[in-house]
């Protein structure tokens, strides 16, 4: 059961979005997020919504998975929508006690709700269509310019890679330790919350000890393989930008232009 957790929610499929350069995907996602929050009228919002729907369809990921990621934040969406409803200037349409709803309030609450939905959908397309390794790879390369601020970008990416590698191993280990403690009579399923938290201690301590031992051994194995940090290191996988990446950039550029025009003229 515990091993079923999938990381980054990557969904392998043969969609065109899967084959885009991960760096481009990350950059375009960031641009699109800015775009989502720069829509000031319904026409602009419509264009961005069309973009998101198109990418959801092109991702070839079942809609069910998107709805699942939506479910987790439905409460947040409703709360912000309701709160925004009551914060609007102008002539009230409806007034009762301290609550007043204005036309601007309704406008705001619709906008904020749609924006959050779009944001989550679009971010999900990135994590659904990009494997965790590709993602760390892309982030390492995109972060490279930060090196001039003495940020150790290679080390950060290396840590992410190792963390991803060891999540399943440590999950498996947790499972084993839990079984071992149960076999010794540990009770993890009954009692109040405090008692259950206490029951975790005999699981966490062996897990930590073993994680440190693994870290020590892994460090030695990496030394055996001549690891000397990021300098002088090459990569087997080279990321190549192709025609489809150019098309993606052009599409986002056109959408941006559309949104700007809508904001100004309509």
């Amino acid at each position, binding site marked *: 059961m515990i091993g079923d957790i999938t990381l980054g929610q990557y969904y392998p499929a043969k969609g065109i979005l899967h084959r885009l350069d991960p760096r481009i995907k990350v950059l375009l996602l960031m641009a699109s997020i800015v775009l989502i929050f720069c829509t000031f009228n319904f026409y602009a919002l419509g264009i961005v919504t069309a973009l998101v729907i198109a990418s959801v369809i092109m991702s070839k990921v079942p809609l069910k998975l998107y709805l699942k990621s939506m479910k987790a934040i439905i409460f947040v969406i409703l709360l912000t929508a309701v709160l925004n409803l009551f914060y609007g200037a102008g002539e009230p349409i409806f007034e009762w006690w301290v609550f007043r709803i204005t036309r601007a309030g309704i406008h705001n609450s619709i906008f904020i709700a749609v924006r959050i939905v779009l944001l989550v959908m679009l971010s999900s397309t990135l994590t659904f269509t990009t494997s*965790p*390794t590709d993602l760390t790879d892309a982030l390492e390369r995109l972060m490279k310019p930060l090196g001039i601020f003495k940020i150790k970008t290679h080390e950060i990416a290396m840590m992410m*890679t*190792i963390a*991803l*590698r060891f999540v*399943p*191993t440590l999950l*498996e280990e947790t499972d084993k330790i839990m079984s071992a403690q149960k076999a010794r009579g540990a009770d993890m399923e009954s009692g109040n919350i405090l008692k259950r938290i206490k029951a975790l201690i005999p699981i966490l301590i062996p897990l930590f000890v073993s994680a440190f031992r*693994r870290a020590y*051994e*892994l460090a*030695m*194995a*990496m*030394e*055996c*393989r*001549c*690891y*000397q940090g990021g300098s*002088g*290191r*090459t*990569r*087997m*996988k*080279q990321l190549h930008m192709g025609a489809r990446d150019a098309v993606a950039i052009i599409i986002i550029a056109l959408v941006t232009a559309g949104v700007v025009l809508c904001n100004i003229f309509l």
Partner: protein
Amino acid sequence: MDFIETRNLTFFYESEEDEQQNNVRNVLDSVSISVKQGEFLAVIGHNGSGKSTLSKHMNAILLPTGGKMYVDGIDTSDESRIYDVRRKVGLVLQNPDNQLVASIVEEDVAFGPENLGVEPEEIRRRVDSALKAVDMYEYRLHAPHKLSGGQKQRVAIAGILAMEPDCIVLDEPTAMLDPKGREEVITAITRLNKEQGITVVLITHNMEETVGCDRIIVIDDGKVLTEGTPHRVFSQVDRLRRHHLDVPQSTELCSRLSAIGLNFSNLPLSTEECVEELLEVLG
């Protein structure tokens, strides 16, 4: 000078407490051995004999506290050449889980050559040929945690192989594996030695694994107890037993039979040899 040579290699773990009490114990005590190019050498000894410590000297993970260790003529204490040593001698460790860095097999194998700054196309070629050499090519896109122990250990060997070392040292590579995984690993390293001429140093306490090697060095209590061909070493059944070391099962069987009066021309090492010898003696 042979490919790997030690001269009175001595090693102890330094701790202040021990020094004050003046009871520093040498893990390795004046060991002088050599490994020839292209040889398949097995180092045996029971737990705590110092055999693992010896293996970690061979690629400069540990440095001698006394004596010298030479790899292809390079003194491993020379810190400026530490990566030359590690490039020539690759070390495979016991636990395959704790040696794999990346979450895709081929990316893990690429880790070594990437560290060496090899060109991308050349890395690709090395990764493919290393994975083929250990028969793991069709698993190149798998996640390591979904492989069996024997497969993981073979990926670890491929990871070292991709750095194109002259020699591979394996520190009890089969200790955590089931019999099937054990056989896979031993077959793979035997093939590397025979087909690619890579020098292999196999550290083990499983005597059956040493049957196919060229030479055995027995380490006990930090010292070299005896060395020679498998036949020569395992013919000293009583001596090995006095030092709490086993011999292969077939050797054990025939040695006990000879104790009750059967005469063997030489003690067998493998099941096949054993059958032959028994047929000759009994029939």
